[in-house]
């Protein structure tokens, strides 16, 4: 369970171009459900995801994970929390070019120093599971958009995180691939993982697997509705 208490985020604080992207948000994202943030461009969705996922610190307010305050922790602890708790799927996938699909998937586990053979097996299983069994050795720049996204999902799952955080996961995908993505989310949900996404795409917030749709405008929460699944 992640809780944000009266959180703000000001970019370039104290400078001429200071900008308050999040202006006092309180929200609890519980376990075991799928939540989507929607809202106009620039409303602060990505910023909020970085705060939830410990990729950035709030300017003020507090972030707690399972009741423990994590917003003030030193970087070293945040890294550990990120690694153990969250898996990220970035909008532009952010795979590392020049490495193979398999190596990209293994990357988050490198600092753990796991047995190489076991880690390779785990990466291959994940890729296989996502229908990329034959592409493990391929350098990621040769993958199609949909394949790259599934590699990014496999990478997010390699450390078996509780939360999967995805920013605009279907922005570059056609209808068929969007449906495929929703199938993957369905599986994750069934495995008991919490999936938190942002999206402009009605196909996402209207999908039958979504429990909750939260609207953001100008850095403030303006609506918090039950999704199709909950309805």
């Amino acid at each position, binding site marked *: 369970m992640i809780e944000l208490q009266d959180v703000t985020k000001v970019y370039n604080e104290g400078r001429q171009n200071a900008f308050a992207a999040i202006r006092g948000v309180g929200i609890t994202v519980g376990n075991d459900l799928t939540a989507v943030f929607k809202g106009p461009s620039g409303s602060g969705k990505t910023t909020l995801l970085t705060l939830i996922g410990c*990729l950035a610190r709030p300017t003020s307010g507090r972030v707690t994970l399972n009741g423990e305050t994590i917003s003030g922790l030193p970087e070293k602890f945040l890294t550990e929390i990120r690694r153990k708790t969250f898996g990220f799927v970035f909008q532009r996938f*952010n795979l590392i070019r020049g490495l193979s699909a398999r190596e990209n998937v293994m990357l988050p586990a*490198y600092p753990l120093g796991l047995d190489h053979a076991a880690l390779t097996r785990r990466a291959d299983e994940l890729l296989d599971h996502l229908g990329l069994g034959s592409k493990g050795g391929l350098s990621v720049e040769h993958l199609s958009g949909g394949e790259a996204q599934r590699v990014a999902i496999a990478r997010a799952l390699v450390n078996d995180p509780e939360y999967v955080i995805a920013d605009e996961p279907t922005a570059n995908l056609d209808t068929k691939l969007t449906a495929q993505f929703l199938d993957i989310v369905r599986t994750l949900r069934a495995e008991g993982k919490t999936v938190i996404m942002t999206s402009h795409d009605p196909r996402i917030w209207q999908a039958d697997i979504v429990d909750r749709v939260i609207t953001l405008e100008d850095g403030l929460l303006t609506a918090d509705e039950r999704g199709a699944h909950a309805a």
Partner: protein
Amino acid sequence: MIRQVARQRYLIDFTLASMMRRKVKNVVLFGVYFLIVFVLASVMLFGSAIRREAALLLANAPEVTVQKLVMGRHDMISGEHLEALSAIRGVRRAEGRLWGYLFDRGNGANYTMMVPPASDTTHAVGPGEAIVGSGIDRVKTIGRNEYLFLIAPSGRFFKFTVKERLPEGSGLVAADLVLISEADYRALFDLPDGVYTDLALSIRNEKEVATILGKAAKAVPNSRFVTRSSIARTYESIFTWREGVLLALLGAAILSFAILAFDKASGLSAEERREIGILKAVGWETSDVLTSKFWEGALISLGAFLIGLIAAYAHVFFFQAGLLEPVLKGWAVLYPDFRLTPHIDPLQVTTLAFFTIVPYTAATIIPIWRAAITDPDTVMR
């Protein structure tokens, strides 16, 4: 423990893969680095080897050498002055020396011919015998004995039985040295009895040299006195001046390299910055990122350093510093042909390592560290 090892292995694997991705840049960097280390190390090894040779040489040189001057030029000196010189207070011994060079037309080599001083009992040679340096390859084995055949300037043939070979590594003069008896020397060069190449004075107390020189100048007019300390100074100034010119040029080169390295390092490309952000976002610690980049820097700088050093060693000691010759050649006038004794000064190597590896590593690590401690949220954009 095992985890730590495995973790380093993963990080090194990742480092190698990411170096492969920037192959051209890294190869260029490695090349520049290698060249600088190679040239610097060549000059250093050469300089220190020469100094060492000079020191060895001077250790055996007499405190004062007396040369006869005829019309301003060095000529053979008569032994009749020896008595007067050894009578001077403070002079322990005065000896006539016979030495010179013999050009061997057969193989184009120059030999240093010398009569061992009477005081040197370990290298005493009888008539028809010779002691040769390790660099003399003219020696022929006939029957059980080794012989050295020489052609005198007059065209006469001489045959010597080789009594002993000086061990390798005893210094550059020793390599092409041929020691023969006084009688043979005089016959070889057609020298009358009683003349010497120069006279050597050994002195009881180095502080008295000035007073002794004053008295000796009266005893032996028309002569020049060369002291050991003045030879040492001459050597020093020749080497230091030439090395100085080279090092100044190299300093400029290093500076430009440092600027290049710093520029490259401080201006992390957007791609590199993004990569660091990704690694941090997926759970790498700042120290993991730094370790990986450290391995990268270490592989380039340490690798280039070691290979550069080995190449310089080979260049100086096996190929006679051929590439430095145009600059450093002047001193070779003193000794026509030489082969340096391999020698490495650990302090110099450490200094060189320090000034090449540390600035580079620091220049690369610092900006990466700055990128790696910032929040990784930028990768979301």
